[in-house]
């Protein structure tokens, strides 16, 4: 019998727990991570931010730009500073290969700080997002899925999708609010 060595590698650990629920929104500081790529995510997160603010939350947006070189070093520092003063994080958008990679990486960074965290991706990239979360050692990462394709839709239609998804998003995030609980009933 010929013995052959294993060429592959794997991570030894995996966190299957989704982390803490978002809970009550009133008075909470919420970081929303947006990017340079997807106008549709700007539109969705704008709508969601309106809802979150109506529940008494304080919402801060952070836009991910270049993530390599000096610009990347500064981006990582800024993002860490934002997370340090945030009570929860919403991270998107996974709507291509590399941007899903960065979305999940940033979500894992947020989740590692212990704050409630949810990543957002579109349906075509759901599998990738789950894979990356698992391979990043946190298969339990919360994930909300928006329809695909999204970015080619007109603004009004994306706004409608954002409104339709707001309550399911709150539930997936473990938000305790009248709106979320009503819709769950």
């Amino acid at each position, binding site marked *: 019998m010929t013995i052959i060595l294993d060429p592959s*590698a794997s991570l030894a650990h995996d966190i299957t727990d989704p982390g803490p629920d978002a809970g009550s929104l009133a008075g909470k500081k919420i970081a929303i991570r947006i990017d340079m790529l997807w106008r549709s995510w700007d539109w969705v997160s704008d709508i969601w931010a309106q809802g979150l603010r109506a529940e008494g939350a304080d919402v801060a947006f952070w836009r991910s730009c270049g993530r390599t*070189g000096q610009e990347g070093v500064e981006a990582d520092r800024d993002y860490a500073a934002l997370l340090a003063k945030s009570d929860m994080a919403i991270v998107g958008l996974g709507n291509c*290969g590399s*941007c899903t990679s960065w979305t999940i990486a940033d979500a894992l960074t947020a989740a590692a700080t212990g704050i409630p965290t949810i990543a957002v991706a579109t349906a075509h990239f759901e599998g990738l997002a789950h894979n990356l979360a698992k391979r990043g050692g946190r298969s339990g990462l919360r994930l909300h899925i928006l329809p695909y394709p999204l970015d080619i839709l007109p603004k009004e239609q994306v706004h409608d999708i954002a409104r339709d998804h707001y309550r399911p998003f709150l539930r997936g995030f473990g938000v305790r609010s009248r709106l979320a609980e009503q819709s769950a009933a």
Partner: protein
Amino acid sequence: MAQGWGDGLPLIPPTPDRVQDFLIAGGRFPDELIAPLPPLRAECTVEKIAINAVMAGCTGDAMPLLCAAIEAMADPMFDLAGLNATTGSVVPALIVNGPIRNRLDIPYQAGCLGGVAGPAVAIGRAIRLIMRNVAGQVIGATSQSVYGTPGRVAGIVFAEWEERSPWAPLAERRGVLGDAVTAYGAMGTANICDVVANEADGFLDMIAKSMAYPGANGFLPSSAFSEALCVINPIWAEVIGRAYPDITDVQAYLWDKCALSIDSFRPEYRDPIGNLGRIKPDGRVHLVPKPEDMLVMVGGGEGGLHAAMLHSWGTCLTVTRPVVAA
């Protein structure tokens, strides 16, 4: 193959004896960590490199180059996490400088970008197997590449024809003397042909204008920065070198001409590009932000007539590392 360890081509069984020979040739401890590799973020050790190198058909003397290449690709500047997941068709190209080019028989003359029989094919394939087996880059599971590229089978591994270059070697210009490997995120290779030009500016104009196509990643309204690489054949290089003995002048020339008018973009592209501060006062948008982002090297056959352009992907930044002999 049933384990998902292969690429569809026959593999050499990585028996303990074979792997041991590679480890000895590499001169490093088998459990030495080279880097965690995304998307799996699992640890790539010297032993994992050796196992995959055996499977790919490498020879043991390639181990120092393979280790240096993985170190370069794992540098955060290279954004391997994004590169291995992207919808783009990018593959890390490895450019070799220094005497190791000849020791390992890395091609830099005719056919250097593909087709030359020699060890470079197995070296490139080893890198690809490491991406698959250690980094976990698998089409459909983690990689979302819409098309992929032939370079994802056996890589793109070539060297610079330093002896025919009027300028210092690429790696030396990037701060690494002697044996070195440069990892470059290549969106494939494309050809530039010119049968008319007979002086430096003519060659450079053709190269620059050919590289400035609007679908290049460097022109994306989301790309704050990028790089580009052109490989100039030794015949053209000699002519260009006489006119521009300083390589920074060549880069500046290419940078200047490798641009598109903002008016050539449809209206909906203009604001996003402008928001990145990329529209110059003369109304042009350059493929790369600065002349030094235009990488230039010499290679290819003496038939001349052609240059090669390799556009970069995303904000992946080129990384050069020394190749340390065992």
